[in-house]
């Protein structure tokens, strides 16, 4: 299960970010932000090789001491679900692309993916 889920815009600002242990939110934000470097690196590497066959799953970005940071898709359906839900948000005609996501459905879906904080 995930402890923190973030959707980042193309321009690298957070559209949506949520973490379960709320007291340590800052750390997760830093972690997510830092992982963007790896994402960028991976994407640019793939982009050179084969632009069409870009695999959305980036795999393990890097491990920290306590957690592992993944990009996009894992072998579970977790990220697929996230993507579908994100697509739904994007399809909402009232959603202005680039705004932070404030969708209840998305929220609910993310909550289901999260570790249930006791």
């Amino acid at each position, binding site marked *: 299960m995930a402890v923190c889920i973030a959707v980042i815009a193309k*321009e*690298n600002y957070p559209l949506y970010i949520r973490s379960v242990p709320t007291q340590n*939110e800052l750390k997760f*934000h*830093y972690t997510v932000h*830092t*992982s963007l470097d*790896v994402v*960028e*690196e991976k994407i640019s590497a793939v982009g050179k090789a084969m632009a069409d066959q870009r695999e959305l799953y980036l795999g393990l970005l890097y491990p920290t001491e306590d957690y592992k940071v993944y990009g996009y898709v894992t072998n579970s359906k977790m990220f697929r679900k996230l993507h579908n839900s994100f697509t739904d948000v994007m399809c909402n005609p009232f959603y202005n692309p680039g705004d932070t996501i404030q969708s209840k459905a998305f929220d609910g879906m993310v909550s289901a993916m999260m570790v249930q904080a006791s």
Partner: protein
Amino acid sequence: MAQCVQSVHEFIQDSFVPMVAVLCSEDAEKVTRKNNLNFSELLRPFCRLTSEGHMRDPNNQVQVVKNLRISVNNVVTRPSVPASGTPSLAQRLLLSEVVSTCQPAEGGVANVITAGDYDLNISATTPWFEAYRETFLQSMPAADHEFLNHYLACLLVVSSSEAVPVEKFLKLSQEQHRIQHSGEYTNPKWFIPNTLKYYVLLHDMSQGDEHRADSVYEDMKQRYGAQGCYLLKVNSRTAAAGADEQIPDPWSQYLHKSSLQNGSLVNSLDSTHPLQLDTSGDTPGSLDALRAVAVETKAGTAAAAAASHGACLTLNDHDRIRQFIQEFTFRGLLPHIEKNIRQLNDQLVSRKGLSRSLFSATKKWFGGGKVPEKSIAELKNTSGLLYPPEAPELQIRKMADLCFLVQHYELAYSCYHTAKKDFLSDQAMLYAAGALEMAAVSAFLQGGAPRPYPAHYMDTAIQTYRDVCKNMHLAERCALLSAEILKSQAKFSDAATLLIKMTSEVSGDCDLRSALLLEQAAHCFINMRNPMVRKFAFHMILAGHRFSKAGQKRHALRCYCQAMQVYKGKGWSLAEDHINFTIGRQSFTLRQPENAVSAFRHILTNESQQASSQQAAFLREYLYVYKNVTGVCDVALPQLPLPYINSSATRVYFGHERRLAEGEKQAATHVSLDQEFDRDLAAMWRDLEEQVVASANRGVVPATFQATQCCLNSQTDNLRFPLAVVEEPIIVEVVFRNPLKVPLVLSDVSLLWKFTLKDFSRPQDAAVGDALAFSNEKETLARLKLLPHQTGQLNILGLVYNLASTPSTGGTTVSSSAALKSDGPSPADGTSVRGRQDLEIQGPRLNQTKEEKTSVSHGPDRRLDPTITPPMPLLEVFFLQFPTALLCGEIRKAYVEFCNVSGVPLCGLRVVSTHPDFFTFGSSSLATPLTPLSPTSFENCSAYKTLATPPGATPGSVAAVTLVSAGDFGLGEGGSGTSNGVAEIPLEDRVLKPGQSTQLPLWLRGPDHEGVHEINFLFYYESAVKGGKISHRVLRHTVFICASRSLCVRATACRSNTLPEEEAEEEDERRNGSMLVFVDVENINTNEAGVREFHIAQVSSSSKQWRLHRCINPAEDKDCKLNSRERGKLCFRATRCKPVQGTIMTSIEKYIFADLSLGNEQIISSTTPCADFFFRRCPPSDSRRPPVAVETQGRLSRSQGAGPGGGAEDLTSLVRKCNEVDLDIIVLWKAFVVEDNKQVILEGQLHVALQTIGKEACSLTQKEEAQEMVLLKFKPELPPPMTRPSMEQLSHLIKTNLHYPESYRHPFIHKSLCLVPVTLTLSNCSLAQVDVIIDLRHKTTSPESLEVHGSFTWLGQTQYKLQLRAQEVMRVPLRACFLHAGVYNLGTPRVFAKLADQGAMCETSQQTATPALIIIINDT
């Protein structure tokens, strides 16, 4: 990793240099002391050799030694650093000091790195790191497993002034020997047992005898050989010559650092004599001293610079010293090393083959192979020594080190490699690690790179140092070297990983190292081929955190600031807040309060997503910091970020705040800040003002007209500078919004303004800012008042206020608002700061031209820049006894008080209203006041002017008649009158003097429709002194009147069929005809509790042609009373007025008012207020029916085209006219209302306009009418209505009447035929000649004709053809013949009529008279 001053090769070479010890005699020390230096310090700047040296390796190959540096140090016998792996406290303090003193230069080199969207400004170099590294490496304690920093040689220095220098040399030599070999001292460590001793004779040129020195030197050469001694002549400079000669000071760059270095530092503890051995010195002692020195260095950097070094040295002396070092190195040190390498090599070669196997064999024998002494457990603890100092295993390492020092890296590598294998096989991990480290380094340093750099050697070495040997010190050195090498090979990622690995542990004592390494790692990330900006930022933050933990606040701040560049404005608000907060804190502790404030400001101005407690903390901190800033500099008030000011919502109000009620008086509502702006209302007021201005300027609105705006907001027109009047306050309403979740307390709020004097007629006087205070969670308003005392241009710039968070002691909840504070100093419990915020209002976006549409440009907004103009009159209007609820049509008298509260006379007072029919000030022509002027003396009196009816007269019998011209009531003429709702207020003298007030009566009439009516008054006035900037002023008033239903009056007019009684009427009157008017009055009041009953007091008529004549009500009760839901009917006869009355006044048509009083007093309806309301309600009849007028005209023009024969329009109008009545009925009523157990009589009047005979008119006008008007408006070219008058209309031309006896007795027995004379009266209603045909033939087939038993016959002529002149009455005598007794309907004659000149038209059947029944009685 940031750029370094040194190249990697230089750096590594300099990290490992030959060490030379110095033993100095006391006298020699004295000589050097003259220069404020000791001997080793004296030499230090010259320790790098500029020329190349040569030596031969064991294979007799010449090896070039380039750029060699040697390190000269005094002998220190005290162990400076414990041998353990962790750095000592003293060392840590030293490093910390080094780092903190080395700060980035102000405005220093910064290179901009562009990575993706980021443009980062990063300091190119990190000198603090280099300083740290250098110091760290130099302070490395000499270890036993390696020899690199063991002393290779020892300089023995003796002054020439010594009595017997040779003896002294001997002594020093013995001393050295004792130190090295006696075993008393573990420190310093010596490389080789027979250390090179180099004898230096120091000669003071200024003091000693040079010849003696030379002779002693000759002696020394004899004794020690020419290559083992040197005569150094210094201090040749005389004190006298020294002053003006500028000598470079090469020591300054070394000494500052070196004085901090451990060795010399400890030296400085016992600077009396370096040879005075003090073994008792322990760490705490040195620590204290170190602290003292640290303080000293801090305080006295400048002082140290002043006490310059080398004051007694000339440039020649410098050269001599350089010469000496070169001589020493090339003649003494290098041959010594060469010799030793050769020796060691020989030893090793001789042992080779044999020794290896021998050693391993012995090991096997002794260790038994299975249970070696170096068991696994022991292996773990390999920090302890394994080999004795002279162990053969160490010889190869020693040789390797020597080779390394003289830059013979190839040989060094092979030696290290061999050593490594040996050590590994021996499981001597510490030694192995050392060998690995150096092997890697020498492999890297080999020129031409025959083999790649073995990075894994380094990794293994670091791991071993750290994990097995627990020696962080060595691990760190290894990491530093390795990282530097990796960096040079552009392996930034590896370097970063390596550096981060070194910091991963969390122990508290290595914060500084962690911080520095993290920073370097961050630099590695940013220097990658694809710069990893975010990783850079993150590690910078980590570094900053560690820096701050290590107490390096400046560095911490710098790190955070650099990281901030990445996080700024990218939406990572939590991180951004965190960084800003840290920057703020660090800046504050570093006494950079401005930076702190701006950082804190960022946290607070962002739409913070922090929890409220966090926000409260931020705010507290911010206020605290801020207070300290302002405490320092209180010259200019700084800008405060909180709360937000919604600038565009700022409203400006010009004028006094009005009291709405003052006792009995009710002030005009005018405009206040409490009102919301309403665009429609504003337009309405503008229209009203335009009307009144037009009426004041003879019907023309001046081109310069601008509607008065008392209250400016974002929706008003703010392009012009608003005009404010001197001595009249300006109130500015500012909207604050608190973006935080914690309450803010604002106090002492005042406006900031700038004033430009324009008129110097008055003395300089300052405007006064008033203050308000409040606090809230969300949006709050503050109103601030400014009172200008002078004319000129005012600019309101901003606000000044005290900001505070909630006092924590107050215990108020977060949501609590409105902690109002009195002005004055803020209370002591909460921190409060004073600051300003500017009000900058952006004008509306321009959208006119194409340019403006495509770009975003805003117009000016001058809301806050009022022009102060000279005094203007100021009117205050109060209403007395002004009702809030009225019955429909109720007349109420109220009073208005006009007050000129200014110092300027006022004139031209006018009023305009949306409902001009609602009120009247009375007609100006009736000058005499009809009612008492004071409202107090007027209680329960009728609003009307009344006359008591003569006691004898029957109520309602005779109508009193008055003639009134409409002009008297300000109607009719379009000029300055009340043409469209504008009324001049009849002031005495037309001027209201300063301070004067006047009361005027005001009559009100309840609106005709029930419901709540909003009635707007606009009072207009001018200054009696013309030519001011403000042409006029206005005062608004809005009232809400609740109208409730009273009576509903319906009236119908019918033609009277009866002929006027001949005896009473004159011929004229008969000719004019009369009419019956039925007035149907219904009580439709629903408020049964309030209104008990209505009395119809009087019915009056007003018309130009008709008048009510008398009441012909059949009911006994003339005073008509109506209870709830009751309905009463009144019948009146109306007569046409005498033509005389109409002809006298031809120019001005007069209205005839006829009063028919039903009670005992007559209300004179032709006076104020009754007539006023009549005229206000009904404009003159012509204008009342505009469509008809248009119709007539249009038809006229068409008829002219058609020729003289066609007169359809004349016909129509003629026909219509004959049906037209222009009679207005005024029903005056009284209502008895119970109010608070008191009966109150209310009066009122209702108007009904009768226009057509037979058509019912109602006092409640229908809604459709208005709609019709609108339609007409939209279609001005209305298709002409039917060209001919309708049948219905034509059937009203002739009025018929039968005159006969009601009953007729006839003796049928005697005479079977009964003849009854009947007179048929025909009266022409129209104004034209009419041809009439009377047909008497029986036609009883019509179903509506009453079926009567039997029939009768008309006798004589059955058809008449007559012609009637206009309004002529003609009687036709007829005879009816009856056969039986009975009841007969005589109304059978049919009358056809047509207008005489309309030949083509058929005669139209005229409306038959009602059945005319006659009773024929058989008279027996």
